[in-house]
C-alpha cells in the first residue's frame, strides 16, 4: 500500500473491528477482518492487541471451542471511549484530506 498506517490508526481499526462483535472476537478473525481493509502481515496484530489489552482498551476471556481454548477479545468501556475519540478525529481528518485531494 502507498500510504502508511500509523499506530494510532491501526489501534482505531482494531478497536472498531473488535467493537463490532458484542460477544468479542478472536485473533485470527480480527486479523482477517483488518486484512480486508489494509495490507498487514499475519503477525502484525499480536503486539497491538497485547498493548491495547494492557492499556485497558480490550479485555480477554477464554472459551473452549472444539476441545481447545480460544481467546476472545472484547472492547472495554475505556476502549469504547478511545474509539469514539479516534472516530471523531478520523472523520475530521479524512474529510479534510479528501477535500484537499479530491479531483476537480
Amino acid at each position, binding site marked *: 500500500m502507498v500510504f502508511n498506517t500509523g499506530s494510532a490508526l491501526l489501534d482505531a481499526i482494531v478497536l472498531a473491528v473488535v467493537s463490532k462483535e458484542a460477544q468479542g472476537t478472536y*485473533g485470527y478473525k480480527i486479523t482477517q477482518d483488518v486484512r480486508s481493509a489494509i495490507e498487514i*502481515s499475519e503477525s502484525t496484530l499480536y503486539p497491538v492487541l497485547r498493548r491495547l489489552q494492557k492499556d485497558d482498551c480490550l479485555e480477554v476471556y477464554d472459551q473452549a471451542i472444539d476441545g481447545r481454548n480460544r481467546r476472545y477479545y472484547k472492547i472495554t468501556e475505556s476502549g469504547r471511549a478511545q474509539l469514539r475519540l479516534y472516530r471523531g478525529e478520523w472523520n475530521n481528518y479524512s474529510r479534510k484530506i479528501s477535500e484537499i485531494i479530491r479531483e476537480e
Partner: protein
Amino acid sequence: MRKDDFLKELEYLLQDIPDDEKKDAIAYYRDYLEEAGPEREEEVLAGFGSPEKIASEIRMNLTGNVNQRGEFTDQGYTDRRFDRTFHPAVSVPQGARTQGAAGKGEASHSDGGRTDHGKREDKRFRGIKEFFSGRAEDVWWKYLLAGVAVIVIAPVLFSILLGIMGSLVGVFSLLVGCLILLAVLTLTAFVGGAALLANGFLHLFTGFWSGVMMVGMGMIAIGCGFLLFFCSYMFYGRFLPWAFRGIWRVCRKAVASLPGQVR
C-alpha cells in the same frame, strides 16, 4: 517449518521474558495457527516470517516504551528515530492518541505514567540529557559507571592521542627537514654555479676550451638551482597549503555532520 517446530522455536527464543508474557504470546500464535487450519498453515507461517522476527516484535512491545522508541504500524514495528522520511501526517492521529490517553487517565488512574505518550515522544533523549546534566534521580551508580568507564577508556584514548600527535610531529619534522635540505641544495647550486661561471670566464683567457666547459657547467648548476627553487616553491608554496586546506575542510565537514548522525 511446521507449526510445532515454529512454536517450539518461539518458546525457546522467548525464554528470558516474563512467564505470563511468554505464555500469552505462545497461546496467541498457537491459537492463530489452529484457527487458520492445516490448509492455510504453510501460508500463515510464511506470513509470520522467522520465529526470530516474531520474538523481536514481542520483545520490542514488552520494553514498555513503544511510544518512545517506535510503533507498530501496518508495516510491523518501525522505529522513527531511524526513519529519515518522517511523515508529519501521522502526527495528527498521534495527537489524538495523546488526548485519548490523557482522557483515559482520568477514567482509570491505574497507570499514571502512561498519560503523556505524546509528550514523551518529544523527550526521547531526556534520559540521556539527564544522565549528562546529572538531573536524573538516583544517579550515584551512573557516576560510578562513568568513573569506571573513564578509568578504563582513558589509557586507550591517551595512547591513541599520543600516537596521533607523534605522527603529526613526525610528518611536520620531515617536511621541515626536506625544506632545509632543499634550501641548502638550491643555495649550493646557485653559489657553485656562480663560482663556476666566474671561474670559467677567467679560464677563457688561459685555456679557452676548459673555460667554456666551466661556464657551461656553471650555467647547468644555476639552471639546477632554478629548477630546485621552482620545485620547492611548487611543493611548499602551493601544494602544502592546498593539501592542508583540503584536510581542514574534510575535518570540519566531519565535525559538522556529527550531531546529525547522533540524532
